[in-house]
């Protein structure tokens, strides 16, 4: 297969000259690497914006009493922090990785639908501006938590319709990105690159994309009902009219549970790429990894109400959702065991990506344990809506999803920029981050079990010590990320030249390592040789 490129003015292909110059290059680009870069930078910026909000929260919680912000503003911060981290930082960052890596990994010239690819990115800046603008509106931003539960969210001021439309725009963007990824993987694989040869990162993204297409529309529908309940007199969530506020929760979590897997499945793929490389061994149990990912994806559709154990569902419902949720531990366990078996009898080295991958395995497993604990519905009657939950989901999302993103960045940065990053700074970033993240979130298990509810701006004095500790950890964590930004900046600016293989023996782990570092503007203009593909693990 070969590639053809067109320009509106020139009939001749333009690709030898590389990309156009200036700002319009980025606005009109259809190139998967350009769009990947845009996504990644957006993700990083939003990570700092959402992080700043987290620091407002942790500053207020440093000691009992209200010192800095009004409780209403505090609630806006918790709401926007979550929405921005989920939709602004983690999802765009994963989409950026998918854009950069999938065509290179499957031997394709670009994504299958390049114009739509541009649109799915360029909806994001507009939606984030819309979301951020709600902070300055009458009544402030939405303050009902990222779940936007009615009836509370219907008390939002002018921000409500803007928040709903932000969700619609983000949903459109995600659905288009997901369609593009699925189509690319189904239709653009190089000859010989069968589905069961795909790197796990590609597999996990295919399943993630399927989840996105299936659940984002449901979320869009649910927030549409919020809008009509508020402005058009419908009664979906109003008992007097025959509706039920809990209906929203069912719709939300039918989206929300697959959504949390959308945030973690690509991480599984990244970790499954990195551990074999630095263990110098093939991934253990490739096909069981694929089946486990698919099982997790399917299970995610039938467990949603475990977020609602306290709404007073009938007993049969509670028990069904308990059993179904517990089942998720089986495929997740398989993944962890496979990673361990991959490291077992390998020849490991510990560069920054590997350090992050190991920390991921350790700390994500911690989040997995607490997850298993709260799947047990009677016990969750205690855990629910406490800091125990906050600790749990931050363990799976920060040392989970975010660490995977750090690992991926260090792993592929030399490929993207053509320069090795500063390993010393990378390690410093790792140790500061890993220690502080635990100082921040580990104590939250204790205050949660001891009875501190979540989403409160002030707390009883017996929780003071652990909250102070947690806040210190949060600030160290937050400022450590400046090192991360600097390492990326430095690698873009220059540094030791990276070879095409970058990491010893990496060529056996993916096609991307056969392209030069940095790779050409169009990845595989000619399909990779069969030998390259058949040599992959």
């Amino acid at each position, binding site marked *: 297969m070969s590639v053809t490129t067109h320009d509106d003015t020139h009939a001749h292909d333009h690709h030898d000259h590389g990309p156009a110059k200036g700002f319009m290059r980025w606005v009109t680009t259809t190139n998967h690497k350009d769009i990947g870069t845009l996504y990644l930078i957006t993700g990083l910026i939003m990570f700092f914006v959402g992080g700043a909000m987290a620091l407002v929260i942790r500053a207020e919680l440093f000691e009992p*009493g*209200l*010192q800095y912000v*009004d*409780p*209403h503003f505090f*609630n806006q911060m918790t709401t926007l922090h979550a929405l921005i981290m989920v939709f602004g930082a983690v999802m765009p960052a994963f989409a950026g990785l998918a854009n950069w890596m999938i065509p290179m990994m499957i031997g394709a010239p670009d994504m299958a639908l390049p114009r739509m690819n541009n649109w799915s990115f360029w909806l994001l800046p507009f939606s984030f501006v819309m979301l951020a603008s709600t902070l300055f509106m*009458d*009544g402030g931003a939405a303050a*009902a938590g990222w779940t936007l539960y009615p*009836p*509370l969210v219907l008390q939002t*001021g*002018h921000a409500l319709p803007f928040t709903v439309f932000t969700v619609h725009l983000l949903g459109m963007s995600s659905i288009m990105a997901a369609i593009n990824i699925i189509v690319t993987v189904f239709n653009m694989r190089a000859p010989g690159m069968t589905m069961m040869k795909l790197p796990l990162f590609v597999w996990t993204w295919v399943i993630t994309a399927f989840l996105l297409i299936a659940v984002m529309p449901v979320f869009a529908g649910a927030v549409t009902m919020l809008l009509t309940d508020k402005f058009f007199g419908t009664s979906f969530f109003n008992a*007097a009219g025959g509706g*039920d506020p*809990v209906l929203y929760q069912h719709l939300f979590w039918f989206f929300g549970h697959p959504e949390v897997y959308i945030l973690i499945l690509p991480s599984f793929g990244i970790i499954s790429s990195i551990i074999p490389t630095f263990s*110098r*061994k*093939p991934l*253990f149990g*490739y096909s069981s990894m694929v089946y486990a990912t698919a099982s997790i994806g399917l299970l995610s559709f039938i467990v949603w109400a475990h977020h609602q154990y*306290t709404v*007073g569902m009938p*007993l049969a419902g509670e028990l069904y959702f*308990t*059993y179904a949720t*517990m089942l998720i531990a*089986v495929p997740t366990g398989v993944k962890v*065991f496979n990673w*361990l078996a991959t*490291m*077992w*009898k*390998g*020849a490991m*080295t510990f560069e920054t990506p590997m*350090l992050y991958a190991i920390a991921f*395995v350790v700390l994500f*497993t911690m989040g997995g344990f607490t997850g298993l604990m709260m799947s*047990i*519905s*009677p*016990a969750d009657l*205690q855990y*629910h809506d*406490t800091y125990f939950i906050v600790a749990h989901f931050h363990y799976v999302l920060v040392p989970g999803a975010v660490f995977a993103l750090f690992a991926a960045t260090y792993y592929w940065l030399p490929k993207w920029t053509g320069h090795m990053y500063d390993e010393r700074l990378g390690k410093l970033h790792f*140790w500061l981050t890993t220690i502080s993240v635990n100082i921040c979130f580990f104590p939250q*298990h*204790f205050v949660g*079990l*001891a*009875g501190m*509810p979540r*989403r409160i701006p*002030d*707390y*009883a*004095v*017996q929780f003071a010590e652990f909250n102070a500790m947690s806040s210190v950890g949060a600030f160290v964590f937050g400022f450590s990320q400046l090192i991360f930004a600097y390492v990326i900046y430095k690698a873009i600016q220059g540094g030791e030249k990276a070879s095409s293989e970058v990491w010893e023996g990496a060529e056996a782990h993916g096609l991307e390592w056969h392209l030069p570092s940095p790779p050409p503007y169009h990845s595989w203009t000619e399909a990779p040789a069969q030998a390259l593909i058949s040599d992959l693990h």
Partner: protein
Amino acid sequence: MKKTLQLLAGFWLVLWGVANAETGSGTGVGWGALNLPAGVTPDSHDIHDLHMTILWICVGIGILVYGILVYSLIHHRKSKGVVPATFHENTKLEIVWTIIPFLILIAMAIPATKVMIKVYDTSASDMTIKVTGYQWKWRYEYLTEGEGKGIDFFSSLDAKSNEARQLGSKIDPATVEHYLLNVDKPLVIPANKKIRILLTAADVLHAWWVPEFGWKKDAIPGFITDGWIKVETPGVYRGQCAELCGRDHGFMPIVVIVKTEDEYKQWVAAEKAKQDAGKADASKPLSLDELVAKGKEVYASNCAACHGLEGEGVPSVFPAIKGSKVALGPLADHVKLVLHGKAAMPAFKEHLSDVEAAAVVTYQRNGFGNNKGDSIQPADIQAYK
């Protein structure tokens, strides 16, 4: 790599700490209270035991997983000159580590099911109390004949905590007894009786939670959910609203005083006597100044959260009272709005006594520079109800 090991060791010490921590009261102070309280009801004991069982199972699996990881990290590294193995699957092993977790899960599901069935069994209760969540207070109504039927009151954050928790109050919360965990009027129940708690809400979702009782449940407007408690030991138990319910979600605690059967009977008698006295008060006329003074208190605890202490409101969300059309308009409309509510404004007719309603309306019409000059007497409130 040594650092990783130290870190891991650190986790284990901390985990060990959790498991062995004093499992005493959730309202205990400082570093001792690291775990779920063992509780004072049958449900809470069961849930605590279940929690400890799962925790230990997780600790066991954790020792295995992290142990293998640490061993591998120490011995299987390139710097030791290891030549990497090439194996990449082992069907038997993979089947084993799929089936064993499954069996462990079944072992956990059985006790979980038993406990859940017990928690859900609210039948054969001795008395019933209806609990309604409001922004941001609780209302308790006793429904059972002979066990205080007719007692009906609101319970909100106590004045001292409320003063200290204001932004920039300069009051050290440590000096306030039971900061944020104290109320003006606690729920009082008898010990050793099975009490069915019915939950609902007037405005948005709330959740009623006393950790020592073992469970929390959402209060949903328009629906009744329920749970039961049977407290073994008399004492004072504290909890908080556990479902985000707006600005003052963190400031609507729950306090339950559990009395012996005799003490409870005395308390019921005293409450009844107070109720009768209150009815007599309603017929007494009050001066404008008396009404305004009383109204100011009622306003601070019932209206200020939304409409602001100075009647300034929140633009586009909660209307201001200062200079409002309602407060400066016809008296009858004002009274009706307060008693019957409208859209987000709750109805206060059952919430305020006649005296309180008359006082707060009068205060709103004459405070904040409104100076309308008119007033309404407690005796006239009934006509609007």
